[in-house]
């Protein structure tokens, strides 16, 4: 296996895009390639993620992106893994480059849904669940994670302030991130007084609906030789799955796919949780951040929400989590999210994170979940 690097990453500002998903994806891809010092023709394969492209009446967008990058002869394919689509794309790019099937590969994720109303977006997002056994019985996405939050608060007697602290921290970080959809800090009062979407989840427990695009360029060390940026060495690229229907899993107090993907990743990287300087984790709802930190092995079961309230996961805490603002406040343009997490890590490694720079950025972990944890990707990066 060849040593493989992320040589550049780029994204637009999440929120509402005027241009089409295809245009936005091409633009961030262009920017990432330009940053990398490689030329478009160096790309050997393009992995595109656009799970809800049909909402723009567009499928098979890869060839259109490659054509607009001036590389129509480069192969592309669409990688769909719900909210973990573009981290699945990154995994495929890693496999191609590390395995010697391409010297460099492009990963791009994009979503545009802002032309839809709340009802239509809620209905689209529910398609990531099991239609016959969850959605048809009334589940929405916030509803599914709400049942996880219900089980967690019942088992560990947590207080709303603990989940509030996760939202407050992520909004504070996003306020420092030019790519973020929400750039205003929130108070505990704002959190507690926000409407219930799916009990016990309030508005501020939820990630928003977001448009956005992000791209990552992956290349073999031996192909790049003298990088133009501070590359992220991909120390681990692991994926896992678990029982599709949440309710059929042995317990509701975590996501098994996160546990197994993390085990694989730490083994590949020959590292342990204590070796990681900061994390980007999948916080589509505040409960998801707590579960992620426990399933990844950073905190004992039932303690992560408490740790958050104590400030452990803040920008200058012992373990900075989601310096970007996370899905909660940076935004969650479904198929762009996994690549977007890598954009944050790239900016932290390259001194581009400005006021949200973490104290130490030599190693990082990215955790991206598909649906309610039926898919999961974990990537570990370090400096050269």
């Amino acid at each position: 296996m060849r040593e493989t690097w992320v040589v550049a990453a780029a994204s637009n500002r999440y929120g509402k895009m005027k241009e089409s998903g295809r245009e936005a994806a091409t633009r961030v891809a262009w920017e990432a390639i330009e940053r990398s010092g490689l030329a478009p023709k160096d790309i050997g394969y393009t992995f595109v993620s656009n799970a809800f492209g049909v909402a723009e009446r567009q499928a098979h967008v890869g060839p259109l992106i490659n054509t607009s990058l001036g590389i129509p002869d480069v192969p592309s394919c669409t990688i769909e893994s719900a909210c973990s689509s573009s981290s699945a794309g990154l995994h495929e790019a890693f496999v191609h480059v590390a395995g010697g099937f391409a010297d460099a590969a492009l990963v791009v994720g994009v979503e545009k849904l802002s032309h839809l109303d709340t009802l239509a977006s809620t209905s689209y997002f529910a398609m990531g669940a099991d239609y016959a056994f969850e959605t048809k019985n009334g589940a929405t996405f916030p509803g599914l994670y709400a049942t996880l939050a219900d089980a967690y608060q019942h088992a560990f007697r947590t207080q709303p302030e603990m989940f509030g602290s996760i939202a407050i921290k992520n909004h504070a970080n996003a306020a420092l991130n030019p790519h973020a959809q929400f750039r205003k800090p929130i108070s505990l009062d704002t959190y507690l007084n926000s409407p219930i979407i799916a009990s016990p989840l309030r508005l501020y427990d939820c990630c928003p609906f977001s448009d956005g695009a992000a791209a990552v360029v992956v290349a073999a060390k031996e192909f790049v030789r003298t990088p133009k940026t501070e590359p992220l060495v991909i120390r681990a690229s692991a994926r896992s799955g678990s029982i599709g229907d949440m309710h059929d899993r042995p317990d509701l107090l975590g996501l098994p796919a996160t546990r197994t993907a993390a085990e694989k990743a730490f083994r590949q990287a020959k590292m342990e949780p204590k070796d990681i300087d900061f994390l980007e984790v999948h916080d589509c709802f505040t409960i998801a951040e707590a579960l992620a930190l426990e399933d990844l092995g950073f905190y004992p079961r039932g303690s992560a929400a408490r740790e958050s309230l104590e400030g452990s996961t803040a920008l200058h805490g012992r373990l900075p989590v989601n310096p970007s603002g996370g899905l909660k406040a940076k935004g969650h343009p479904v198929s762009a999210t996994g690549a977007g997490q890598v954009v944050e890590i790239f900016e932290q490694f390259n001194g581009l994170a400005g006021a949200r720079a973490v104290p130490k950025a030599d190693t990082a972990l990215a955790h991206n979940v598909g649906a309610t944890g039926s898919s999961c990707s974990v990537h570990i990066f370090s400096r050269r």
Partner: protein
Amino acid sequence: MTATWSLACPRCGEARLGEIDLSGRGRIVAYTVQNVPGDEFLNEAPYAYVIVELEEGGRITGWMPTVRREEDLAIGDRVRFSTSYKPGVQFVKDVPGVE
């Protein structure tokens, strides 16, 4: 044991599955009262989406049109199957002595 369509056991992979009849009774494992519905439940919100542990074992999901507030239900409450006419599997509270 699963109440979800499958050719093999989701937990152990065993492919020799048998079928059993269900009483339709069980207990709430986790639930949520949803205020923001999808299109098939447009006129139903707020309602509870529930995960139910069946008396015979195995779990199933459903919804409860009459549960409109979080405090109207609790983990551990007994429920029974009411209908799956429209749109999905419906449960009601299982109050002993009341049909």
